[in-house]
């Protein structure tokens, strides 16, 4: 908590403090309740939009520092040369049209007792309910030398889309034929399990055309190709024989950007281009709010029907930051956002939220410039177990194909439209 009550009183004066104390009464008398959403990504933007669509009586403020949204979905297509940055850069211009108040700023503190969010520019914004959807932050200190390598521009994660996506693409373009691209992924759970395998596939697609003597070494913190394994393995054999070496159970511990050596628990690998995805945790603002409260202190437990923190009332968490058995994907974040929005509408109107929400989880991955495949799983909330339960019948396609490449493109268009359009 960065905002102490004393400071707050000093700054805000008695008037605002009194109005804050009166907040619960506001909601109860059904004047306009105020939801503050932090982060305009797949979780936050969707939640803000659907709150306004489903109950125009709710006031919504959406805090986001970026001018534009860079989509991680499709970013591997850019790294592999199938698309360019413009294709994944999306505007926030439609959101104010829903009556969402956009605040271009970063939330840096939460006082959960007084229900006030503080921003970097010194704003104090009072809420009836707070929705935190900041995505992930990287635990770079777990890889020795990572910070130095990143500062030198020699070690990239490209696991948040934006400048690093383009930088990685540029490095691959500059790499000589016969070079080695090392991509390292952390043990679970983290953002987009299938992402590293899709990235390896699409970089291999690029190498095959332009640098056929090059190699891709995957140092994988997972025990196997854990997502869509048969599909990726079949594609690697068919399209890129001998080009991708997948080394499972091989977590990176150190990197030296001067010698360009990546060190795992088992080996040293010399690289020309280094892409290390560090372990992740929920965005810092979750820690400030006291909700990054799972046993390891990295993710945020929530009530599955409302996405409210079980320990900090009136604070809800969405998307990758949530401690859950659901995959950390844009698809899931968008779905969670709608469930949270619907629950908030019910709560503000004095009704019981649905205890049995259902979430669909799909991700498409491309295996080449014309093939892709999906995984699809339906999960239903079980309030007695306090968790989402995977329904039988779900799973991944055993191989990529052309029709799913078309559906993958449709998925991009529709999730962007649903989240930001």
């Amino acid at each position, binding site marked *: 908590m960065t905002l102490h009550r004393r400071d707050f009183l000093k700054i805000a004066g008695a008037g605002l403090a009194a109005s804050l104390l009166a907040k619960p009464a506001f909601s109860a008398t059904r004047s306009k309740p105020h939801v503050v959403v932090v982060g305009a990504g797949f979780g936050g933007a969707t939640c803000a939009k659907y709150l306004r669509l489903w109950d125009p009586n709710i006031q919504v403020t959406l805090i986001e520092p970026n001018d534009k949204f860079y989509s991680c979905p499709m970013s591997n297509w850019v790294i592999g040369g199938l698309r360019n940055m413009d294709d994944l850069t999306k505007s926030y211009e439609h959101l104010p049209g829903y009556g969402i108040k956009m605040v271009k700023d970063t939330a840096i503190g939460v006082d959960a007792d007084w229900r006030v969010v503080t921003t970097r520019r010194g704003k104090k914004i009072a809420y009836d309910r707070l929705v935190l959807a900041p995505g992930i932050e990287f635990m770079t200190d777990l890889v020795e030398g990572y910070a130095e390598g990143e500062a030198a521009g020699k070690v990239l994660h490209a696991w948040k889309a934006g400048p690093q996506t383009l930088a990685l693409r540029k490095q691959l373009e500059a790499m000589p034929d016969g070079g080695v691209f090392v991509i390292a992924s952390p043990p679970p759970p983290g953002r987009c399990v299938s992402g590293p395998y899709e990235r390896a596939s699409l970089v291999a697609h690029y190498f095959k055309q332009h640098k056929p003597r090059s190699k891709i070494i995957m140092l994988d913190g997972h025990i196997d190709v854990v997502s869509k394994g048969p599909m990726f393995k079949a594609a690697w054999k068919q399209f890129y024989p001998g080009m991708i070496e997948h080394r499972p159970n091989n977590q990176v511990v150190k990197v030296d950007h001067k010698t360009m050596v990546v060190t795992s628990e088992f080996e040293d690998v010399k690289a020309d281009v280094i892409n290390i995805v560090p372990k992740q945790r929920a965005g810092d603002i979750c820690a400030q709010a006291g909700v990054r409260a799972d046993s390891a202190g990295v993710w945020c437990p929530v009530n599955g029907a409302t996405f409210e923190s079980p320990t900090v009332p009136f604070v809800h968490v969405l998307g990758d930051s949530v401690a859950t058995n659901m995959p950390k994907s844009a698809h899931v974040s968008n779905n969670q956002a709608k469930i949270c929005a619907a629950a908030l509408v019910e709560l503000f109107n004095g*009704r019981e939220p*649905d205890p049995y929400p259902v979430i669909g989880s799909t991700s498409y991955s491309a295996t080449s410039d014309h093939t892709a495949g999906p995984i699809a799983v339906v999960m239903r909330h079980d309030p007695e177990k306090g968790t989402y339960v995977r329904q039988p019948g779900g799973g991944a396609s055993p191989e990529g194909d052309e029709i*799913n490449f078309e559906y993958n493109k449709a998925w991009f268009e529709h999730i962007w439209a649903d989240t930001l359009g």
Partner: protein
Amino acid sequence: MNMKRREAVVAAILWLATGVAGAAGPAPTCLISGKEKPASVCAAHTKTISATCFICHGPNGKSVAAIPGLAGQDKDYLVTAMREFRDGKRESTVMQKYALGYTDSEYEAIAAFFAAIK
């Protein structure tokens, strides 16, 4: 002080909940997951399960791409499609996996939702 404030909030919410129920008389109910619930719970459920389809089929089921739209489709057509996907009578890439995750009554509710969209 903080705890007191929180209790006050909870009390206010409870008061509101009872207030609303009291004003409306015996509220209409519905059955969900084998439990009797206020009808509003089922309405909220239908709203969010239908919205899970938007990500692939387009917001409100209005498609601009290769995955077919659902908006304004005939209700029976939609229910039949879901049953056929589930039973493997109709070929699909993902829809069998989705259809298996929902119930017959959910097919009906979702189909009514999309059929009503102009």
